[in-house]
């Protein structure tokens, strides 16, 4: 019973998160200006982190947790660097 509940709910959650990643990627390709692309890259990072956490629940291993933590760290650093680049024209001055 609980295996069936977990299987279907995790499958639906993975599909929803994959659709959200697809929408963010579409906005990143189409986005009219550079700040739209950076914003959707940030959303893409968050969605990928959530998808990895759902993978971790599905397989029952805590290894995916470290991957999700690394992804959230890299997403923060990359978005800050890109926003700094938009603001000043260079990242490290």
């Amino acid at each position, binding site marked *: *019973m609980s295996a069936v*509940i*977990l299987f279907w709910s995790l499958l639906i959650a993975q599909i929803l998160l994959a659709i959200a990643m697809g929408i*963010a990627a579409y906005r990143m390709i189409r986005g009219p200006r550079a700040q739209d692309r950076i914003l959707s890259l*940030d959303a893409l990072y968050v969605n990928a982190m959530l998808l990895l956490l759902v993978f971790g*629940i599905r397989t029952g291993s805590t290894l995916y947790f470290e991957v999700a933590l690394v992804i959230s760290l890299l997403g923060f650093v990359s978005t*800050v660097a890109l926003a700094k680049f*938009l603001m000043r024209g260079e990242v490290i001055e």
Partner: protein
Amino acid sequence: MNHAADIPVWAALLTAFFVLVGACLTLIGALGLLRLKTFYERMHAPTLGSTWGTAGVLLASIIFFSVLQSRPVLHEVLIAVFVTVTTPVTLMLLARAALYRDRIEDGSEVPAPVKQHTSDGE
């Protein structure tokens, strides 16, 4: 899914509820990113996934692994704290950068910068 039959039904129901809430809120945030008109409106939408989307999936993970391993597994709180702290920082930097770019280009749609009032009265 060989281990999933070991956990009781109430834990499976709680995990399913929280993971579905988190995934649905993240999808709603992504739809807002797709459909809103201007950049300053679009900036609000993905934070739905950063706050309760992340919180839902992390709560589901905490409940699932705590019941599965019969001990409190709380290291997902690290991700929650980190995302909560860093999302406002990144989005405020990005909003300042976008405002700067819009003011440089035409400045008709965004408010002008606030003048600095000096004491010598210009």
